[in-house]
């Protein structure tokens, strides 16, 4: 692709993003019209997991850092919000600020240490940090310990006179959708930006990128912290959705689930996180109602994707270009 005047983003992907947004906005009404309200919580779950998977895709796909501990941030965000609510703090903005602060700080500390390693060591050390938090959550009896923490109330946002309570399924769905839309927009802007290109360079060859003058360690840390905070927000939304958080939100299988979503949807793509979350959760939903062994069949689907669709679901309809840079 020849360089030249930049094309405005959003048009490049055709009308697809606009259609997707319109469909997502209309979805609750469609469900209601058909008497399928029950599925709204599934839709919300897909959106929440799409946010988490998108944040992991930033680290795993765009920066090429195989973090096997992303559940740390998802679970931490869920716990921060759950604990605040159980202590009587219901202010949504406070939950948001605290979640971002705690998860970003955790990502900074975990990233600062683990980003000094590479390859298998990086995978293991991120996993180890997440497992440490998992055992910590198990041992803190004051906040549920291994039984988890139930919350009665939810995050409250006051918009002038109007009170937005995430206890309302519709409110939660739209808030999560707005967060996802912002995350996807930011990711679409990121990829062709100076920072996005620098991150692509360090993913391809960080020794070379560093030798050319990119402070690669710092850039990786920035990506890791941003992704951690976004993962934390997904966790905060998840606890609002389920009214419950347990140490399982921090378990390595949760990290694995997010990884599967990214790989299934499309590594290093904008839409991969959403596509993967939707595919995996829908697949589980369908299979769970027809067979006891849904994980077995999910495994086969994943295998097929890895073997035959290297670029994941998103890659099936975007042809590979000579350059990954638009």
């Amino acid at each position: 692709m020849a360089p030249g005047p930049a094309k405005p983003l959003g048009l490049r992907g055709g009308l697809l993003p606009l259609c997707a947004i319109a469909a997502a906005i209309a979805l609750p009404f469609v469900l209601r019209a058909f008497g399928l309200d029950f599925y709204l919580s599934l839709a919300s779950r897909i959106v929440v997991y799409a946010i988490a998977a998108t944040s992991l895709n930033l680290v795993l796909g765009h920066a090429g850092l195989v973090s096997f501990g992303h559940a740390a941030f998802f679970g931490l965000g869920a716990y921060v919000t759950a604990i605040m609510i159980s202590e009587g703090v219901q202010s949504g903005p406070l939950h948001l600020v605290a979640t971002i602060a705690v998860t970003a700080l955790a990502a900074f500390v975990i990233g600062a240490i683990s980003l000094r390693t590479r390859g298998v060591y990086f995978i293991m050390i991120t996993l180890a940090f997440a497992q440490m938090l998992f055992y910590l959550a198990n041992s803190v009896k004051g906040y549920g310990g291994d039984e988890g923490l139930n919350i009665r109330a939810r995050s409250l946002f006051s918009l002038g006179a109007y009170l937005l309570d995430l206890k309302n399924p519709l409110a939660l769905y739209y808030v999560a959708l707005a967060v996802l839309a912002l995350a996807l927009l930011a990711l679409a802007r990121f990829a062709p930006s100076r920072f996005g290109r620098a991150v692509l360079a360090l993913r391809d060859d960080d020794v070379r990128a560093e030798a050319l003058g990119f402070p690669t360690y710092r850039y990786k840390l920035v990506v890791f912290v941003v992704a951690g905070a976004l993962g934390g927000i997904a966790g905060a939304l998840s606890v609002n959705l389920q009214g419950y958080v347990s140490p399982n939100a921090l378990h390595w299988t949760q990290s694995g689930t997010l990884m599967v979503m990214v790989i299934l949807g499309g590594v290093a793509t904008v839409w991969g996180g959403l596509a993967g979350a939707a595919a995996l959760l829908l697949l589980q939903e369908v299979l769970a109602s027809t067979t006891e062994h849904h994980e077995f069949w999910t495994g086969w689907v994943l295998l097929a994707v890895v073997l035959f669709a290297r670029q994941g679901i998103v890659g099936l309809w975007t042809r590979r270009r000579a350059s990954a840079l638009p």
Partner: protein
Amino acid sequence: MTDIATAAPLLDVRGLEKRFGGLVATDRVDLRVDAGEIHALIGPNGAGKTTLVAQLGGQLASDRGTIVFAGADITAWPTHRRARHGLVRSFQITRLFRSASVIDNVALAVQAVTGSSIDAWRPARRDTALFERARALLDTLGLGAKAAHSIDQLSHGERRALEVGMTFASRPRLMLLDEPMAGMGREESARMEALIGVVRKESAVLLIEHDVDAVFRLADRVSVLVGGRVVASGTPAAVRSDPAVIAAYLGDDAGAA
């Protein structure tokens, strides 16, 4: 080239050491490179050239000694800071950004030293200065027609040219070229030699090379590294007839040259 320089050298390495366990890979190396010169570093296999380059480039920390470059003691600096100060290296084994096109590789090399890259919103393609510089450089490299190609579509010689070109993209004060002619045929080597002749007009060059003939044609000064030590340093003519060089270098490992 006089031995007593009036101006401070561009690169001044003193007493540099690197040990790997009991092995002394770099043994009290003194080395100077002046602005505008091509200084060649030759030596038999295992002489410690690669280790020394990695120490200068910042990929390896030194155990002892100092590296002063363009007025700053850069001994403890991380690699990217050295690059931004004008000391950029190329690699013996080609390292390019495989998922980027040819021109994007060069544009990234320019971007790396021009301003901050913490802009995650505006498309970099709008930065016309960046791409004009990249395009001009591709023309210099003879790769102008292949700007939009992927790296996989380039020949070995073209990749080596791109490797050197990316090092040059930021107009560094000093380029460390690590065996730019490795694995090249006669014709490709000649082209690389011509390219180095072009880039030297803007940058000093520390040329690590196996091809001794090319070295003696290109270099203003030559240093000979044997067993981690600089055994001789001077003009090509002086080095060629230096008995220590003939004994240690050609005698020890004549086949490697």
